[in-house]
């Protein structure tokens, strides 16, 4: 059982790797085949329902970095099981739907691979017990969703939506990393299952505020809470199957999951409840208003997703058995109906060529199955009896039905929010499907079966679950709430338990009435809201653009400052830093003191003595000096380069004389080649023959050169003044032949004792070669100037 849990998270990745191949060879059935993976995962996870409903939990761990006690651990309890079941169940239907929706697309294989990888990341996220694993999967969902949203990468709007989602959610991801590490440092635990047994360790800590802020930032960015909600509608640039998956059951629910998961550790404090209810409430209303403002059905759904996320955050913030049960019920109900509705909108778009709600009507006759699925989904969205969402609504009203002003305020927010969501649902059900048939770009007909299975099953599931509410409440809501609240919660919902005359049911009726009212005034509300939005003139979206554009301009300015392209300045900086690196230790760390004692008391006779050298050694030094002098006096660059070669050759001779033939050998070759290559560079660059710089430039460069030279000389003197540590040399001399079977110690060191260094070096040599070639080639093809086009915004009415 242990490893198979990890397989749940890894399986989709394996399927993703194979997806392009499977798509190529089993073209019309690829979706059905690939859907077997999530379907199998769904069925496998179903087998956990019973033990977990009986209070068991399952944990599996694989060693990750054993030296630090870090394990890759997975954990199944009521909460993760609910999420994992939703993800894999909805995911299986989405895969079938996507293969049909994008049929004939030349990148369908790639798309399915992205989708499955995303699913794997999401499953890993909800199953991870280890906080670092959670973070890893969290970031993986960001990256895979980036690929999915930007799938249609030829379109600028698509790229922008993808980048925006990535930037916003990754900022949250970084906050999550900080939060995760802080949590580990404060508690010494990586596992969330262990954390929640520790009770008040974090809540009571002085840094509680910081940890909370980190986790909230992560959850709010991912779950698109106001004012960071704007990336979600832009993410609608993705193909519709992506939206159906990301914005119903997965990506955006990750933040909700995180909040639920951290409730036992961070939650149930005043500040937690206040922040979550305020942000959640504002997001709920804001999303509803946003939805009513739109006429594009996909945008309407996106905005209602924001609203629903706000609702879930609000409920988690409220805490307590009723609110948490409501949150779990609503999460499942929302995932079912929202995925179905996105798929329906995709099907309508696919078959009629438009998603504009004002342009569509009377489709019910042409697309009867789609209409029935819509009706089922909208039943949930409105929260009518016979739907799971009905119970969710009852529970949340019960949770806040108290005679105090704060709960009452929340109650008002909830009623208004639910009513507006109901209005949007009615709009999508009635406007496009009933009434007279209106002309559309394509002549409408029923979608293919693969695109009908999903909405029908998901819409139906909401109703079936409500009919089996006893079971659902006991097996899913109870264990889920137990996991969130960390105390035993019994599922208590039954049809028989509803008192049809209680004030809460009356509130439901009020909600429906308000919803119908909002529906009838739909076009008027849209006009008013649009006028309001136009009056403000800017949105969080435009602020984002301004910030991004400013960032790019700032980066360009910094680059121009540092990367100005003037070689002499680069070299000047390099050599000045080199001189500093030499002199700071010499002066600051007392390196020179090693030299001073021998020059004591003005007795320089010992120091300034003529070195005891043989005549040919003097000859070599003379040769080097001639080379140097020639370099400095050379009037012609070519001559100077060759003169530098003389000096190098003299150095090679010195190596040879003092017993380093290998070094001398190499030095000779390097000198020859560098003279040749420098000469070639010279002719390529078409420099002036002679170096004609003003005197002050020469003086400046000469000074830098002198300082560097002095630094090197002094450093060498300091090094030589101490006793030479010969341990290493002796070791090599003693072991070279017996161990490495080589008499040439230099070569033995290079290829044997320090082989991995050499390996790195030859890789660097090759990398440098590639870089040089790239430079030489770019010289041939002049680089086009970088044009900074203003970011174009999609025209919105």
């Amino acid at each position: 059982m242990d490893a198979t849990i990890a397989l749940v998270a890894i399986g989709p990745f394996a399927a993703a790797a194979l997806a392009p191949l499977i798509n190529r060879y089993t073209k019309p059935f690829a979706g059905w085949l690939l859907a077997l993976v999530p379907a199998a995962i769904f069925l496998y996870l179903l087998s956990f329902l019973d033990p977990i409903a009986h209070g068991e939990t399952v944990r599996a761990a694989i060693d990750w970095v054993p030296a630090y006690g870090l394990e890759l651990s997975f954990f199944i309890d009521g909460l993760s099981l609910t999420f994992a079941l939703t993800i894999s169940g909805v995911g299986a239907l989405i895969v079938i739907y996507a293969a049909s929706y994008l049929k004939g697309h030349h990148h369908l294989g790639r798309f399915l691979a992205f989708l499955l990888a995303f699913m794997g990341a999401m499953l890993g996220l909800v199953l991870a017990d280890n906080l670092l694993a959670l973070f890893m999967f969290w970031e993986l969902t960001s990256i895979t969703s980036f690929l999915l949203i930007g799938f249609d990468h030829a379109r600028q709007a698509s790229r922008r939506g993808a980048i925006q989602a990535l930037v916003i959610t990754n900022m949250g991801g970084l906050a999550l990393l900080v939060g995760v590490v802080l949590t580990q440092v404060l508690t010494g635990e990586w596992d969330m299952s262990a954390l929640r047994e520790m009770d008040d360790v974090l809540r009571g800590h002085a840094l509680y505020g910081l940890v909370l802020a980190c986790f909230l930032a992560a959850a709010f960015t991912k779950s698109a809470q106001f004012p960071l909600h704007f990336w979600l509608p832009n993410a609608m640039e993705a193909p519709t199957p992506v939206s159906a998956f990301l914005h119903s059951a997965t990506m955006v629910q990750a933040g909700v999951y995180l909040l639920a998961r951290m409730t036992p550790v961070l939650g149930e404090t005043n500040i937690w409840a206040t922040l979550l209810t305020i942000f959640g409430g504002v997001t709920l209303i804001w999303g509803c208003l946003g939805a009513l403002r739109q006429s594009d059905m996909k945008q309407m759904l996106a905005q209602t997703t924001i609203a629903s996320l706000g609702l879930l955050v609000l409920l988690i913030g409220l805490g307590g058995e009723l609110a948490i049960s409501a949150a779990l019920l609503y999460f499942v109900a929302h995932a079912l109906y929202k995925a179905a509705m996105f798929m329906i909108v995709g099907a309508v778009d696919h078959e009629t060529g438009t998603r504009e709600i004002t342009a569509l009507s009377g489709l019910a006759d042409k697309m009867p199955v789609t209409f029935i699925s819509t009706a089922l989904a909208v039943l949930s969205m409105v929260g009518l009896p016979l739907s799971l969402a009905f119970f969710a609504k009852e529970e949340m009203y019960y949770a806040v039905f108290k005679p105090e002003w704060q709960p009452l305020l929340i109650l008002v927010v909830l009623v208004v929010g639910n009513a507006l969501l109901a209005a949007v649902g009615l709009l999508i059900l009635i406007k496009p499907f009933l009434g007279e048939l209106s002309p559309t770009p394509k002549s409408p007909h029923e979608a293919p079966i693969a695109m009908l299975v999903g909405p029908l099953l998901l819409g139906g599931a909401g109703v079936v679950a409500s009919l089996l509410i006893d079971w659902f409440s006991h097996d899913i809501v109870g264990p889920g709430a137990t996991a969130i609240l960390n105390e035993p919660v019994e599922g208590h919902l039954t049809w028989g338990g509803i008192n049809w005359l209680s004030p809460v049911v009356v509130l439901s009726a009020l909600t429906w009435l308000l919803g119908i009212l909002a529906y009838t005034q739909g076009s008027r509300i849209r006009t008013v809201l649009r006028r309001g939005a136009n009056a403000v003139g800017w949105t969080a979206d435009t602020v984002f653009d301004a910030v991004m554009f400013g960032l790019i301009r700032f980066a360009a300015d910094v680059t121009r400052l540092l990367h100005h392209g003037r070689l002499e300045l680069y070299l000047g900086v390099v050599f000045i830093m080199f001189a500093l690196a030499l002199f700071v230790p010499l002066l600051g760390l007392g390196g020179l003191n090693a030299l001073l004692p021998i020059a004591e008391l003005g007795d320089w006779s010992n120091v300034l003595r003529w070195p005891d050298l043989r005549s040919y050694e003097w000859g070599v030094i003379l040769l080097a000096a001639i080379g140097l002098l020639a370099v400095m006096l050379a009037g012609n660059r070519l001559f100077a380069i060759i003169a530098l070669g003389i000096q190098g050759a003299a150095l090679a001779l010195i190596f040879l004389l003092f017993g380093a033939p290998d070094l001398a050998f190499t030095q000779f070759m390097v000198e020859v080649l560098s003279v040749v290559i420098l000469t070639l560079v010279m002719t390529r660059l078409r420099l002036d023959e002679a170096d004609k710089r003003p005197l002050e430039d020469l003086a400046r460069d000469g000074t830098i050169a002198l300082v560097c030279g002095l630094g090197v000389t002094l450093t060498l003197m300091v090094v030589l003044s101490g006793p030479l540590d010969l341990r290493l040399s002796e070791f090599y001399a003693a072991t070279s032949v017996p161990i490495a079977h080589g008499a040439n110690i230099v070569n033995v060191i290079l290829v044997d004792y320090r082989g991995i260094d050499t390996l790195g070096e030859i890789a660097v040599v090759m990398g440098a070669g590639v870089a040089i070639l790239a430079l030489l080639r770019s010289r041939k093809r002049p680089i086009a100037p970088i044009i900074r086009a203003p970011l174009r915004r999609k025209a919105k009415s």
Partner: protein
Amino acid sequence: MNSLIFRTLTPFLVTIILVFSVYVLLRGHNEPGGGFIGGLIAASAMTIFGMASGVSEVRRALRFDPLAIAGFGVCIAVLSGLASLFTGSPFLTSIWLYLELGDTVVPLSTPLFFDIGVYFAVFGTISSVALSLEADESEEL
């Protein structure tokens, strides 16, 4: 530099230098020499060849792109290090094999192949850079 004498002499010169470079490479483990210096010597042969006969001629003679040769070298070096993993020792641990061919014993070892990798990496990179610099504007780099 395109004199008749130089052009006539170059093939002999290049051959001798190349043979010498292999000699330097193979003696490296016991005498001064080795892959790095051998590669440099071979690269200088290519430079001379290029000066005498033009870059396209050298590329034709080499058959492979010099950078590909460099990459090949790095790959050989890595592979020679990986061999030791099969004996259960750490990466790059040397393995020695003494081949008895009649009276002479030829020692073969993974460091030798590693050194050959170094030879190709250096030879390929330096030749590639030198040839690119020698190439005329019109010539394909």
